[in-house]
Protein backbone atom coordinates (compact mmCIF):
# COMPACT_ATOMS: atom_id res chain seq x y z
CA UNK A 1 0.00 0.00 0.00
CA UNK A 2 1.18 3.48 -0.89
CA UNK A 3 0.56 6.04 1.82
CA UNK A 4 1.03 9.80 1.60
CA UNK A 5 1.00 11.09 5.13
CA UNK A 6 0.42 14.84 5.29
CA UNK A 7 2.95 15.45 2.54
CA UNK A 8 3.99 19.07 2.12
CA UNK A 9 6.59 20.78 -0.04
CA UNK A 10 7.90 24.27 0.50
CA UNK A 11 10.50 25.42 -2.02
CA UNK A 12 13.65 27.19 -0.79
CA UNK A 13 12.21 30.50 -2.04
CA UNK A 14 9.33 30.11 0.40
CA UNK A 15 6.66 29.05 -2.11
CA UNK A 16 4.40 26.42 -0.60
CA UNK A 17 3.60 24.11 -3.50
CA UNK A 18 1.90 21.31 -1.58
CA UNK A 19 0.42 21.41 1.88
CA UNK A 20 -0.67 18.48 4.02
CA UNK A 21 -1.82 16.01 1.38
CA UNK A 22 -2.82 12.59 2.73
CA UNK A 23 -3.81 9.83 0.33
CA UNK A 24 -3.86 6.07 0.76
CA UNK A 25 -3.65 3.95 -2.35
CA UNK A 26 -4.29 0.20 -2.24
CA UNK A 27 -2.14 -2.19 -4.25
CA UNK A 28 -3.56 -2.44 -7.75
CA UNK A 29 -5.69 0.66 -7.39
CA UNK A 30 -5.64 3.36 -10.07
CA UNK A 31 -5.76 6.89 -8.71
CA UNK A 32 -5.89 9.97 -10.90
CA UNK A 33 -4.83 13.34 -9.53
CA UNK A 34 -6.41 16.29 -11.32
CA UNK A 35 -6.26 19.99 -10.64
CA UNK A 36 -5.64 23.37 -12.21
CA UNK A 37 -2.12 24.37 -13.16
CA UNK A 38 0.07 25.18 -10.19
CA UNK A 39 -1.88 23.00 -7.76
CA UNK A 40 1.29 21.03 -7.02
CA UNK A 41 0.19 17.77 -8.57
CA UNK A 42 3.51 17.20 -10.33
CA UNK A 43 5.40 18.25 -7.21
CA UNK A 44 3.41 15.67 -5.28
CA UNK A 45 4.22 12.96 -7.81
CA UNK A 46 7.92 13.78 -7.73
CA UNK A 47 7.84 13.46 -3.95
CA UNK A 48 6.22 10.04 -4.27
CA UNK A 49 8.84 8.98 -6.83
CA UNK A 50 11.65 9.93 -4.46
CA UNK A 51 13.19 12.30 -7.05
CA UNK A 52 12.40 15.21 -4.71
CA UNK A 53 12.04 15.16 -0.95
CA UNK A 54 8.90 16.44 0.71
CA UNK A 55 9.63 19.11 3.32
CA UNK A 56 6.77 17.92 5.56
CA UNK A 57 5.18 14.56 6.15
CA UNK A 58 6.29 11.41 4.45
CA UNK A 59 5.59 8.90 1.71
CA UNK A 60 5.44 5.26 2.71
CA UNK A 61 5.45 2.23 0.46
CA UNK A 62 4.41 -0.87 2.41
CA UNK A 63 5.48 0.95 5.57
CA UNK A 64 8.93 1.92 4.28
CA UNK A 65 9.60 5.67 3.98
CA UNK A 66 10.53 6.79 0.46
CA UNK A 67 13.40 9.27 0.45
CA UNK A 68 15.06 8.35 -2.82
CA UNK A 69 14.02 6.55 -6.01
CA UNK A 70 12.88 3.05 -5.11
CA UNK A 71 13.12 -0.19 -7.00
CA UNK A 72 9.37 -0.81 -6.69
CA UNK A 73 8.36 2.65 -7.95
CA UNK A 74 8.50 3.35 -11.66
CA UNK A 75 7.71 6.64 -13.35
CA UNK A 76 6.69 7.77 -16.82
CA UNK A 77 7.16 11.45 -17.54
CA UNK A 78 5.29 13.80 -19.80
CA UNK A 79 8.12 13.40 -22.34
CA UNK A 80 9.34 9.91 -23.25
CA UNK A 81 12.88 10.75 -22.05
CA UNK A 82 14.41 7.93 -24.04
CA UNK A 83 18.17 7.82 -24.20
CA UNK A 84 18.93 8.77 -27.81
CA UNK A 85 22.15 6.74 -27.93
CA UNK A 86 20.43 3.46 -27.12
CA UNK A 87 18.26 1.45 -29.47
CA UNK A 88 14.62 0.98 -28.52
CA UNK A 89 15.36 -2.47 -27.07
CA UNK A 90 18.28 -1.16 -25.02
CA UNK A 91 16.12 1.69 -23.75
CA UNK A 92 13.49 -0.76 -22.58
CA UNK A 93 16.15 -2.89 -20.92
CA UNK A 94 17.83 0.09 -19.24
CA UNK A 95 16.64 -0.85 -15.75
CA UNK A 96 17.55 -4.53 -16.19
CA UNK A 97 21.26 -3.98 -16.65
CA UNK A 98 22.20 -5.98 -13.58
CA UNK A 99 20.25 -9.03 -14.78
CA UNK A 100 21.78 -11.82 -16.87
CA UNK A 101 21.83 -11.06 -20.58
CA UNK A 102 19.54 -13.94 -21.48
CA UNK A 103 16.86 -12.92 -18.98
CA UNK A 104 17.16 -9.28 -19.97
CA UNK A 105 16.67 -10.01 -23.66
CA UNK A 106 13.71 -12.27 -22.99
CA UNK A 107 11.95 -9.74 -20.78
CA UNK A 108 12.65 -6.84 -23.14
CA UNK A 109 11.31 -8.81 -26.10
CA UNK A 110 8.19 -9.79 -24.16
CA UNK A 111 7.55 -6.21 -23.04
CA UNK A 112 8.15 -4.82 -26.52
CA UNK A 113 5.62 -7.27 -27.84
CA UNK A 114 3.14 -6.12 -25.20
CA UNK A 115 3.45 -2.53 -26.41
CA UNK A 116 3.33 -3.66 -30.03
CA UNK A 117 6.76 -2.40 -31.02
CA UNK A 118 8.64 -5.64 -31.67
CA UNK A 119 9.54 -4.46 -35.15
CA UNK A 120 11.10 -1.29 -33.75
CA UNK A 121 13.49 -3.06 -31.36
CA UNK A 122 16.62 -2.18 -33.30
CA UNK A 123 15.86 1.40 -34.33
CA UNK A 124 17.06 4.63 -32.71
CA UNK A 125 14.55 6.64 -30.68
CA UNK A 126 14.73 9.48 -33.22
CA UNK A 127 12.89 7.28 -35.69
CA UNK A 128 9.83 6.84 -33.48
CA UNK A 129 6.61 8.84 -33.52
CA UNK A 130 5.51 10.58 -30.32
CA UNK A 131 3.05 7.84 -29.44
CA UNK A 132 5.55 5.08 -30.13
CA UNK A 133 8.21 6.81 -28.04
CA UNK A 134 5.79 7.07 -25.11
CA UNK A 135 4.98 3.39 -25.47
CA UNK A 136 8.68 2.62 -25.21
CA UNK A 137 8.80 4.78 -22.07
CA UNK A 138 5.89 2.76 -20.67
CA UNK A 139 7.65 -0.47 -21.53
CA UNK A 140 10.86 0.75 -19.89
CA UNK A 141 9.00 1.55 -16.68
CA UNK A 142 6.98 -1.67 -16.65
CA UNK A 143 9.69 -4.16 -17.60
CA UNK A 144 11.12 -4.06 -14.08
CA UNK A 145 7.62 -4.98 -12.77
CA UNK A 146 7.30 -2.18 -10.22
CA UNK A 147 4.65 -2.30 -7.53
CA UNK A 148 3.76 1.34 -8.16
CA UNK A 149 3.81 3.14 -11.49
CA UNK A 150 3.62 6.92 -11.45
CA UNK A 151 2.57 8.76 -14.60
CA UNK A 152 3.06 12.51 -14.86
CA UNK A 153 0.69 13.78 -17.57
CA UNK A 154 1.90 10.89 -19.70
CA UNK A 155 -0.20 11.48 -22.80
CA UNK A 156 -0.69 15.24 -22.74
CA UNK A 157 1.79 15.87 -25.54
CA UNK A 158 0.01 13.50 -27.92
CA UNK A 159 -2.81 14.08 -30.36
CA UNK A 160 -6.35 13.13 -29.32
CA UNK A 161 -6.51 9.82 -31.23
CA UNK A 162 -3.15 8.59 -30.01
CA UNK A 163 -4.07 9.65 -26.50
CA UNK A 164 -7.27 7.61 -26.38
CA UNK A 165 -5.41 4.70 -27.92
CA UNK A 166 -2.67 4.86 -25.30
CA UNK A 167 -5.13 5.20 -22.42
CA UNK A 168 -6.75 1.91 -23.44
CA UNK A 169 -3.32 0.44 -23.95
CA UNK A 170 -2.21 1.49 -20.49
CA UNK A 171 -5.22 -0.25 -18.93
CA UNK A 172 -4.42 -3.33 -20.95
CA UNK A 173 -0.83 -3.32 -19.68
CA UNK A 174 -2.01 -2.66 -16.15
CA UNK A 175 -4.06 -5.85 -16.40
CA UNK A 176 -0.85 -7.93 -16.76
CA UNK A 177 0.55 -7.39 -13.28
CA UNK A 178 -2.00 -5.03 -11.73
CA UNK A 179 0.44 -2.51 -10.27
CA UNK A 180 -0.73 0.55 -8.37
CA UNK A 181 -1.08 3.45 -10.79
CA UNK A 182 -0.98 7.10 -9.81
CA UNK A 183 -1.73 9.30 -12.83
CA UNK A 184 -1.36 13.04 -12.74
CA UNK A 185 -3.40 14.64 -15.50
CA UNK A 186 -5.29 17.76 -16.43
CA UNK A 187 -7.53 15.80 -18.77
CA UNK A 188 -10.78 14.94 -16.95
CA UNK A 189 -11.75 12.34 -19.56
CA UNK A 190 -8.43 10.62 -19.08
CA UNK A 191 -8.88 10.59 -15.31
CA UNK A 192 -12.31 8.99 -15.58
CA UNK A 193 -11.31 6.43 -18.21
CA UNK A 194 -8.40 5.25 -16.12
CA UNK A 195 -9.07 5.75 -12.45
CA UNK A 196 -10.88 3.94 -9.65
CA UNK A 197 -10.69 7.18 -7.74
CA UNK A 198 -10.13 10.77 -8.87
CA UNK A 199 -8.39 13.08 -6.43
CA UNK A 200 -9.10 16.76 -7.11
CA UNK A 201 -6.54 19.25 -5.86
CA UNK A 202 -6.92 22.94 -5.00
CA UNK A 203 -4.07 25.33 -5.83
CA UNK A 204 -2.03 27.88 -3.77
CA UNK A 205 -0.96 25.90 -1.87
CA UNK A 206 -1.76 22.46 -3.27
CA UNK A 207 -4.28 20.69 -1.06
CA UNK A 208 -6.92 18.00 -1.42
CA UNK A 209 -10.26 19.36 -2.55
CA UNK A 210 -12.27 16.24 -3.09
CA UNK A 211 -12.10 12.55 -3.83
CA UNK A 212 -14.51 11.06 -6.32
CA UNK A 213 -14.86 7.29 -6.61
CA UNK A 214 -15.48 6.20 -10.19
CA UNK A 215 -17.37 2.99 -9.81
CA UNK A 216 -17.83 2.11 -13.47
CA UNK A 217 -17.01 -1.28 -14.94
CA UNK A 218 -14.11 -1.52 -17.38
CA UNK A 219 -13.77 -1.09 -20.28
CA UNK A 220 -15.50 2.25 -19.89
CA UNK A 221 -17.62 3.73 -22.63
CA UNK A 222 -16.56 7.35 -23.07
CA UNK A 223 -20.00 8.17 -24.53
CA UNK A 224 -22.15 6.66 -21.82
CA UNK A 225 -24.40 8.69 -19.52
CA UNK A 226 -22.66 7.31 -16.46
CA UNK A 227 -19.31 8.46 -17.82
CA UNK A 228 -20.73 11.89 -18.50
CA UNK A 229 -22.15 12.03 -15.01
CA UNK A 230 -18.82 11.19 -13.42
CA UNK A 231 -17.22 13.80 -15.62
CA UNK A 232 -19.60 16.48 -14.40
CA UNK A 233 -18.92 15.60 -10.80
CA UNK A 234 -15.18 15.94 -11.35
CA UNK A 235 -15.61 19.18 -13.30
CA UNK A 236 -17.81 20.58 -10.53
CA UNK A 237 -15.19 19.69 -7.93
CA UNK A 238 -12.55 21.31 -10.12
CA UNK A 239 -14.62 24.48 -10.36
CA UNK A 240 -15.02 24.56 -6.63
CA UNK A 241 -11.29 24.03 -6.19
CA UNK A 242 -10.64 27.08 -8.37
CA UNK A 243 -13.29 29.12 -6.54
CA UNK A 244 -15.60 29.68 -9.46
CA UNK A 245 -18.83 28.06 -8.35
CA UNK A 246 -20.97 29.51 -11.11
CA UNK A 247 -18.93 28.73 -14.21
CA UNK A 248 -20.43 27.15 -17.30
CA UNK A 249 -19.09 23.76 -16.44
CA UNK A 250 -20.75 23.62 -13.06
CA UNK A 251 -24.01 21.91 -13.71
CA UNK A 252 -24.21 20.56 -10.20
CA UNK A 253 -27.87 21.61 -9.96
CA UNK A 254 -28.64 19.57 -13.05
CA UNK A 255 -26.52 16.69 -11.91
CA UNK A 256 -28.27 16.79 -8.54
CA UNK A 257 -31.37 15.31 -10.08
CA UNK A 258 -29.21 13.63 -12.64
CA UNK A 259 -27.65 11.87 -9.72
CA UNK A 260 -31.02 10.73 -8.54
CA UNK A 261 -31.78 9.38 -11.96
CA UNK A 262 -28.46 7.59 -12.02
CA UNK A 263 -28.80 6.07 -8.60
Amino acid at each position, binding site marked *: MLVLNRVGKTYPNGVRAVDGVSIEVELGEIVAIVGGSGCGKSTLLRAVSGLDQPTHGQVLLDGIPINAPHEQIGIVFQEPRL*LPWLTVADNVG*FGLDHRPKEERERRVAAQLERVGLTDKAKVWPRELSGGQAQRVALARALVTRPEVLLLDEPFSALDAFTRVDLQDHLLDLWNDTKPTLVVVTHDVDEAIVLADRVVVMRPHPGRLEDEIVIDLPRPRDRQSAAFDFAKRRVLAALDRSLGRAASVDDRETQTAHGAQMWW
Partner: protein
Amino acid sequence: MSLVLMSSSAAPDTAQGDAARKSLARFVRPGLGLLLPVALAIFWEIAVYVGWSNGRLIPPPSIIFNTFAELWGTGELQSHSLATLARVALGFVSGVVAGTVLGAITGYSGLSHRLVDPTLQALRSIPSIAWVPLFILWFGIFEASKIILIAVGVFFPVYLGVMGAVMSVDRKIVEVGRVFRLSGFEMVRRILLPAVLPAYVLSLRAGLGLGWMFVVAAEFLGASQGLGFLLIDGQQLGKPATIVAAIVAFAILGKATDTLLAVATAPFLRWEDRFART
Protein backbone atom coordinates in the same frame (compact mmCIF):
# COMPACT_ATOMS: atom_id res chain seq x y z
CA MET B 1 23.79 22.98 -59.50
CA SER B 2 24.27 24.34 -62.98
CA LEU B 3 27.96 23.59 -62.64
CA VAL B 4 27.18 19.99 -61.88
CA LEU B 5 24.95 19.74 -64.88
CA MET B 6 27.53 21.40 -67.08
CA SER B 7 30.33 19.14 -66.03
CA SER B 8 28.19 16.04 -66.32
CA SER B 9 26.99 16.94 -69.77
CA ALA B 10 30.59 17.59 -70.70
CA ALA B 11 31.43 13.99 -69.81
CA PRO B 12 31.60 11.71 -72.85
CA ASP B 13 28.59 9.37 -72.48
CA THR B 14 25.71 10.78 -70.47
CA ALA B 15 23.08 9.69 -72.94
CA GLN B 16 22.05 6.92 -70.51
CA GLY B 17 19.85 9.44 -68.75
CA ASP B 18 19.05 10.33 -65.19
CA ALA B 19 20.62 7.47 -63.28
CA ALA B 20 24.01 7.91 -64.83
CA ARG B 21 23.85 11.65 -64.34
CA LYS B 22 22.97 11.23 -60.70
CA SER B 23 25.78 8.82 -59.93
CA LEU B 24 28.16 11.12 -61.75
CA ALA B 25 26.85 14.10 -59.79
CA ARG B 26 27.71 12.27 -56.60
CA PHE B 27 31.36 12.34 -57.56
CA VAL B 28 31.34 15.74 -59.14
CA ARG B 29 29.67 17.59 -56.27
CA PRO B 30 32.46 17.08 -53.70
CA GLY B 31 34.90 17.91 -56.48
CA LEU B 32 33.41 21.40 -56.71
CA GLY B 33 35.58 22.41 -53.78
CA LEU B 34 38.65 21.76 -55.89
CA LEU B 35 37.61 24.17 -58.59
CA LEU B 36 38.91 27.37 -57.00
CA PRO B 37 42.36 26.20 -55.82
CA VAL B 38 43.02 24.33 -59.08
CA ALA B 39 42.03 27.35 -61.13
CA LEU B 40 44.31 29.60 -59.08
CA ALA B 41 47.20 27.15 -59.42
CA ILE B 42 46.78 26.90 -63.19
CA PHE B 43 46.56 30.67 -63.47
CA TRP B 44 49.80 31.12 -61.52
CA GLU B 45 51.58 28.43 -63.50
CA ILE B 46 50.64 30.20 -66.73
CA ALA B 47 51.51 33.62 -65.29
CA VAL B 48 55.05 32.49 -64.48
CA TYR B 49 55.36 30.54 -67.74
CA VAL B 50 54.53 33.51 -69.94
CA GLY B 51 56.73 35.74 -67.82
CA TRP B 52 54.25 38.02 -66.03
CA SER B 53 56.15 37.15 -62.87
CA ASN B 54 59.52 35.56 -62.27
CA GLY B 55 57.96 33.36 -59.58
CA ARG B 56 60.93 33.67 -57.26
CA LEU B 57 59.02 34.67 -54.14
CA ILE B 58 55.87 32.79 -55.05
CA PRO B 59 57.02 29.67 -56.87
CA PRO B 60 54.61 28.15 -59.41
CA PRO B 61 52.97 24.79 -58.65
CA SER B 62 55.37 22.82 -60.87
CA ILE B 63 58.40 23.98 -58.87
CA ILE B 64 56.64 23.28 -55.59
CA PHE B 65 55.73 19.84 -56.81
CA ASN B 66 59.33 19.19 -57.84
CA THR B 67 60.62 20.35 -54.47
CA PHE B 68 58.04 18.16 -52.77
CA ALA B 69 59.09 15.16 -54.85
CA GLU B 70 62.76 15.91 -54.25
CA LEU B 71 62.29 16.15 -50.48
CA TRP B 72 60.29 12.95 -50.61
CA GLY B 73 62.98 11.26 -52.69
CA THR B 74 65.73 12.05 -50.21
CA GLY B 75 63.48 10.87 -47.37
CA GLU B 76 63.73 14.29 -45.71
CA LEU B 77 60.03 14.96 -45.96
CA GLN B 78 59.14 11.68 -44.31
CA SER B 79 61.56 12.09 -41.41
CA HIS B 80 60.50 15.71 -40.78
CA SER B 81 56.83 14.75 -40.99
CA LEU B 82 57.33 11.87 -38.63
CA ALA B 83 59.13 14.06 -36.09
CA THR B 84 56.31 16.60 -36.20
CA LEU B 85 53.63 13.93 -36.13
CA ALA B 86 55.22 12.33 -33.06
CA ARG B 87 55.26 15.66 -31.22
CA VAL B 88 51.66 16.41 -32.09
CA ALA B 89 50.60 12.91 -31.07
CA LEU B 90 52.34 13.08 -27.69
CA GLY B 91 51.17 16.62 -26.97
CA PHE B 92 47.65 15.86 -28.15
CA VAL B 93 47.30 12.77 -26.00
CA SER B 94 48.59 14.46 -22.85
CA GLY B 95 46.47 17.57 -23.46
CA VAL B 96 43.38 15.47 -24.11
CA VAL B 97 43.88 13.34 -21.00
CA ALA B 98 44.37 16.36 -18.75
CA GLY B 99 41.55 18.32 -20.38
CA THR B 100 39.12 15.42 -20.21
CA VAL B 101 39.82 14.58 -16.57
CA LEU B 102 39.74 18.18 -15.33
CA GLY B 103 36.81 19.11 -17.56
CA ALA B 104 34.77 16.14 -16.35
CA ILE B 105 35.51 16.86 -12.69
CA THR B 106 34.75 20.59 -12.87
CA GLY B 107 31.65 19.91 -14.94
CA TYR B 108 30.32 17.26 -12.58
CA SER B 109 31.07 18.73 -9.17
CA GLY B 110 29.99 22.23 -8.31
CA LEU B 111 32.59 22.59 -5.58
CA SER B 112 35.57 21.73 -7.78
CA HIS B 113 34.13 23.98 -10.45
CA ARG B 114 34.20 26.95 -8.07
CA LEU B 115 37.61 25.88 -6.80
CA VAL B 116 39.48 25.16 -10.03
CA ASP B 117 37.70 26.76 -12.95
CA PRO B 118 38.53 30.44 -12.20
CA THR B 119 42.25 29.65 -12.12
CA LEU B 120 42.10 27.69 -15.35
CA GLN B 121 40.07 30.42 -17.04
CA ALA B 122 42.69 32.97 -15.97
CA LEU B 123 45.46 30.77 -17.35
CA ARG B 124 43.49 30.34 -20.56
CA SER B 125 43.51 34.06 -21.21
CA ILE B 126 47.32 34.00 -21.38
CA PRO B 127 48.45 33.56 -25.01
CA SER B 128 50.04 30.14 -24.85
CA ILE B 129 53.13 31.26 -26.77
CA ALA B 130 53.88 33.52 -23.82
CA TRP B 131 54.78 30.42 -21.86
CA VAL B 132 57.61 29.54 -24.20
CA PRO B 133 60.49 31.29 -22.38
CA LEU B 134 59.39 29.82 -19.08
CA PHE B 135 58.96 26.34 -20.54
CA ILE B 136 62.46 26.52 -22.01
CA LEU B 137 63.87 27.50 -18.63
CA TRP B 138 61.95 24.75 -16.89
CA PHE B 139 62.10 21.90 -19.37
CA GLY B 140 65.06 22.74 -21.59
CA ILE B 141 65.15 23.33 -25.30
CA PHE B 142 64.58 19.72 -26.36
CA GLU B 143 61.45 17.65 -26.76
CA ALA B 144 59.86 18.15 -23.32
CA SER B 145 59.21 21.87 -23.65
CA LYS B 146 57.79 21.42 -27.16
CA ILE B 147 55.43 18.66 -26.21
CA ILE B 148 54.25 20.54 -23.14
CA LEU B 149 53.55 23.63 -25.22
CA ILE B 150 51.45 21.56 -27.63
CA ALA B 151 49.67 19.90 -24.71
CA VAL B 152 48.78 23.32 -23.27
CA GLY B 153 47.33 24.33 -26.62
CA VAL B 154 45.26 21.15 -26.84
CA PHE B 155 44.22 21.24 -23.19
CA PHE B 156 42.00 24.33 -23.20
CA PRO B 157 39.52 23.56 -25.97
CA VAL B 158 39.16 20.02 -24.66
CA TYR B 159 38.75 21.19 -21.06
CA LEU B 160 36.16 23.81 -22.01
CA GLY B 161 34.32 21.44 -24.31
CA VAL B 162 34.09 18.63 -21.77
CA MET B 163 33.15 20.91 -18.89
CA GLY B 164 30.48 22.72 -20.88
CA ALA B 165 29.09 19.47 -22.24
CA VAL B 166 28.89 17.81 -18.83
CA MET B 167 27.25 20.87 -17.30
CA SER B 168 24.65 21.09 -20.03
CA VAL B 169 23.55 17.46 -19.98
CA ASP B 170 19.75 17.48 -19.91
CA ARG B 171 18.45 17.25 -16.33
CA LYS B 172 15.54 15.19 -17.60
CA ILE B 173 17.86 12.50 -18.92
CA VAL B 174 19.87 12.52 -15.69
CA GLU B 175 16.60 11.98 -13.82
CA VAL B 176 16.02 8.81 -15.81
CA GLY B 177 19.32 7.58 -14.40
CA ARG B 178 18.22 8.57 -10.91
CA VAL B 179 14.91 6.75 -11.27
CA PHE B 180 16.87 3.58 -12.04
CA ARG B 181 19.11 4.28 -9.04
CA LEU B 182 22.41 4.43 -10.90
CA SER B 183 25.49 4.89 -8.74
CA GLY B 184 27.79 7.86 -9.38
CA PHE B 185 30.09 5.80 -11.56
CA GLU B 186 27.19 4.18 -13.42
CA MET B 187 25.64 7.58 -13.98
CA VAL B 188 28.88 8.76 -15.62
CA ARG B 189 29.26 5.61 -17.72
CA ARG B 190 25.68 5.13 -18.83
CA ILE B 191 24.27 8.66 -18.97
CA LEU B 192 26.85 11.45 -18.85
CA LEU B 193 29.53 9.94 -21.08
CA PRO B 194 27.27 9.08 -24.02
CA ALA B 195 25.43 12.37 -23.62
CA VAL B 196 28.61 14.45 -23.91
CA LEU B 197 30.15 12.38 -26.70
CA PRO B 198 29.09 14.59 -29.65
CA ALA B 199 30.40 17.75 -27.97
CA TYR B 200 33.51 15.85 -26.87
CA VAL B 201 34.36 14.81 -30.41
CA LEU B 202 34.03 18.43 -31.54
CA SER B 203 36.34 19.62 -28.79
CA LEU B 204 38.86 16.89 -29.68
CA ARG B 205 38.90 18.13 -33.25
CA ALA B 206 39.30 21.73 -32.10
CA GLY B 207 42.12 20.58 -29.82
CA LEU B 208 43.82 18.72 -32.64
CA GLY B 209 43.68 21.84 -34.79
CA LEU B 210 45.37 23.84 -32.06
CA GLY B 211 47.89 21.04 -31.62
CA TRP B 212 48.99 21.49 -35.24
CA MET B 213 49.16 25.24 -34.71
CA PHE B 214 51.34 24.94 -31.64
CA VAL B 215 53.70 22.39 -33.11
CA VAL B 216 54.83 25.04 -35.58
CA ALA B 217 55.47 27.52 -32.78
CA ALA B 218 57.30 24.83 -30.84
CA GLU B 219 59.47 23.89 -33.79
CA PHE B 220 60.34 27.51 -34.44
CA LEU B 221 62.03 27.48 -31.06
CA GLY B 222 65.03 25.70 -32.37
CA ALA B 223 64.39 22.24 -33.58
CA SER B 224 66.75 20.27 -35.79
CA GLN B 225 63.89 18.22 -37.21
CA GLY B 226 60.27 18.61 -38.07
CA LEU B 227 58.20 20.45 -40.64
CA GLY B 228 58.51 23.66 -38.60
CA PHE B 229 62.27 23.35 -38.89
CA LEU B 230 61.86 22.88 -42.64
CA LEU B 231 59.95 26.17 -42.74
CA ILE B 232 62.73 28.05 -40.94
CA ASP B 233 65.35 26.31 -43.06
CA GLY B 234 63.58 27.40 -46.23
CA GLN B 235 63.42 30.95 -44.98
CA GLN B 236 67.09 31.11 -44.00
CA LEU B 237 68.30 29.56 -47.23
CA GLY B 238 65.90 31.67 -49.32
CA LYS B 239 64.02 28.70 -50.74
CA PRO B 240 60.34 29.63 -50.83
CA ALA B 241 59.48 26.38 -52.60
CA THR B 242 60.68 24.43 -49.55
CA ILE B 243 58.53 26.60 -47.32
CA VAL B 244 55.46 26.03 -49.45
CA ALA B 245 56.21 22.31 -49.66
CA ALA B 246 56.32 22.18 -45.84
CA ILE B 247 53.06 24.12 -45.67
CA VAL B 248 51.45 21.69 -48.08
CA ALA B 249 52.69 18.82 -45.91
CA PHE B 250 51.12 20.50 -42.88
CA ALA B 251 47.84 20.87 -44.72
CA ILE B 252 47.81 17.22 -45.78
CA LEU B 253 48.75 15.92 -42.32
CA GLY B 254 46.33 18.23 -40.52
CA LYS B 255 43.43 17.32 -42.77
CA ALA B 256 44.33 13.62 -42.66
CA THR B 257 44.49 13.43 -38.86
CA ASP B 258 41.26 15.40 -38.51
CA THR B 259 39.48 13.11 -40.98
CA LEU B 260 40.89 10.10 -39.16
CA LEU B 261 39.48 11.41 -35.89
CA ALA B 262 36.10 12.14 -37.46
CA VAL B 263 35.90 8.72 -39.12
CA ALA B 264 37.06 6.90 -35.99
CA THR B 265 34.40 8.55 -33.83
CA ALA B 266 31.54 8.41 -36.34
CA PRO B 267 30.35 4.90 -35.33
CA PHE B 268 29.75 6.15 -31.79
CA LEU B 269 27.56 9.01 -32.98
CA ARG B 270 25.25 7.20 -35.38
CA TRP B 271 22.32 7.81 -33.02
CA GLU B 272 22.52 11.59 -33.31
CA ASP B 273 19.37 13.32 -34.49
CA ARG B 274 20.85 16.27 -36.23
CA PHE B 275 20.29 18.70 -39.00
CA ALA B 276 23.32 18.08 -41.20
CA ARG B 277 24.48 14.60 -42.17
CA THR B 278 27.84 14.44 -43.83
